[in-house]
């Protein structure tokens, strides 16, 4: 008998409850998308106000770190999707491994990001420290915006790591042929990936090739 989640108030039927949980998670990530929508609106405004300065500031970004991170997150999303398929196929152990793999890649993302921040600090483009020396005032604004945007993203990514870990440790979730909890956590993780998919061209590609 496959493991099932328990029914709780006010639902009468487990299917309904599962549908409700998934819809709830989707609505929640919709709201998270709007949160980042505000960040993209700010980026759009800045780019439209100062197109040349924006692209030249973007040219100083660490393109390879950004690109590597994009590949890392895309692969991490793959593993989350594999975890869902594994749970649906009854392969609980693979589901667990895929979840851990997704989490590990998420941590790799954070490591690459930390390295990138460290290099930026050494170059003096992190606002605050005394060695801060930006080329121009807009460059300072761009870097500030970059830290806020990627910082907010990293915060969400970290929350996603916690969710992935909790789910990977949850025996009942791994054995659930409906993959309800894994599916919902994977939805959140894919949102983290989606946000980065759009942050990448915004921050890194605007000035590439200059």
């Amino acid at each position, binding site marked *: 008998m496959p493991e099932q989640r328990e029914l709780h108030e006010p639902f009468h039927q487990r299917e309904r409850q599962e549908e*409700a949980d998934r819809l*709830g998670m989707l609505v929640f990530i919709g*709201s*998270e998308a709007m949160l980042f929508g505000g960040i993209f609106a700010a980026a759009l405004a800045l780019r439209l*106000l100062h197109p040349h300065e924006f692209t030249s500031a973007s040219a100083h970004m660490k393109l390879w770190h950004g690109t590597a991170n994009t590949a890392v997150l895309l692969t991490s999303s793959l593993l989350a999707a594999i975890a869902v398929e594994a749970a649906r196929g009854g392969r609980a152990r693979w589901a667990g491994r895929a979840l851990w793999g997704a989490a590990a890649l998420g941590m790799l993302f954070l490591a690459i990001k930390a390295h990138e921040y460290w290099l930026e600090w050494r170059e003096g483009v992190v606002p605050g420290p005394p060695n801060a020396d930006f080329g121009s005032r807009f460059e300072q604004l761009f870097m*500030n915006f970059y*830290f806020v945007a990627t910082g907010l993203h990293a915060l969400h990514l970290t929350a996603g790591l916690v969710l992935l870990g909790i789910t990977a440790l949850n025996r009942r979730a791994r054995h659930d042929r409906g993959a309800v909890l894994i599916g919902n956590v994977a939805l959140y993780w894919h949102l983290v990936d989606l946000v980065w998919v759009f942050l990448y061209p915004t921050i890194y590609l605007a000035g590439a090739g200059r």
Partner: protein
Amino acid sequence: MSAAAIDAEREPEDVERTSYLRAGYSLRSWFFTTDHKRIAILYLFSISFFFAIGGIAAALIRLDLLTPGPDLLSNDGYNRAFSLHGIIMVWFFLIPSIPNTFGNFLIPLMIGARDLAFPRLNLLSWYIYIFAGLLTLLVVLGGGVDTGWTFYTPLTTMYANGMVVMAVVAVFISGFSTILTGLNFIVTIHKLRAPGMTWSRLPLFIWSHYAVSLIFVLATPVLAVTLLLLLAERVFGIGVFDPSLGGDPLLFQHLFWFYSHPAVYIMVLPALGVMSELITSAAHKQIFGYWFVAYASIAIAVIGFLVWGHHMFVSGQSIYASTVFSFLSLAVAVPSAIKVFNWTATLYKGDIDISAPLLFAMGFIVLFVAGGLTGLMLAMLAIDVHVHDTYFVVAHFHYIMVGGTVTAFFGALHYWWPKITGRMYNEMLARIAAITILVGFNLTFFPQYMLGYEGMPRRYHVYPPEFQVLHVLSSAGAGLLAVGYLMPLFYLVWSLFKGARASANPWGATGLEWTTSSPPPKHNFTEQPVVVRGPYHYPLKHPSSRDHA
């Protein structure tokens, strides 16, 4: 439906024994409840408390404005008074008022469910709201902020003293309460409707709350990120709103109003939903144009997201964008007008029972139309140049939010009071209160239209002496309004102890909430209701069988 009839005709002792009010007396049973009805009451107490605080701020404002000079408050003190008034009234009273009290209480009842989809999330919403409210009280005790509830940059980011960071954090946190509430409502309405409750059989109150929930979920996160950027600008000087670094102060206004304009629809849509219920019930008649009203709610929610630039006509926004926003702002009035026409047509040839809820509803229609028409005036670019940042705007939004939402709130409070408490209030006192409120309201706010048109700016407490007469009238009205708002406090509380016990359906109304006892049992219905008809299937029975004939 026979099961529901059994529910409504239960013995009073049985009703009382199983009532949700008696399912536990301990503090724990209230503060750790997951019952949507108890959470609604927790919210009712909390919003009443914040209404009082915001009302005290209003009293200070209106007292200061009795004289043209800065007699009561200093300039800075006055700025803090109106800022506090705005912040508390908007986020801690108006936005949660109808959805979190009546929405919470009634949505499961109206759709035939045992509770909301996520009961614990519902309780968490209340705790988040309370936490944010406590932070705001700390802000008040710490002297408040002088930034206005709109937190415009660069005042907030560069120049304002006072507890700006904590105020912004408090509002930021309160946003999560609303997002979770919206999420809960959306999932509940999709997934927990009783068998037979198709979308075409939903009460219009539910349609309105569904539309409001869309706004909760889609708009509030943008406020959150805007406030985060504001904090980052103030604390770290990131420069996104600072022209010297290449930023734009108007960007703050774009992001802020992208949320705050839909926020005013958050405040009015639930009131519109209440109105559909009060009008059909008082007229004992099917709503005229059910689908028009239902889709109008959705249209208001959608179009309401596209009009925010009308707050920025004179702030430096491109005139082409302003033209687009002006056109869309005119468009958004259409669904509201459709609703008003449909309510009027519903009343026409209805079998109308005069009652306190109906008085509130009629007052709502008049005041909402007045506020809406002045909104159309404000949407015209040329007029707005003249009256922007004057008392004309202040009057407009108070007509909608106070004349509209608060009036509907009181209408709802009276209408569903028997259901929530199991008691009837004193009808005569209620009618006196309703009329006092409506007279007091008009005396307070109509002179403000005139003041604004004559050029009295908003957020000023020093003004030319020729404006004093209108200000005195307005302040007198405010005093009368306060009396009107205090009256229900007395007779409603009195009714809890001495009021007549209410039957299941004292108004002779349709709706699943009236098929269960007053007050309902803990799980709302003793048997799962099954819906076979549309929501306003009047006439129910002979009028003489109504309690309230």
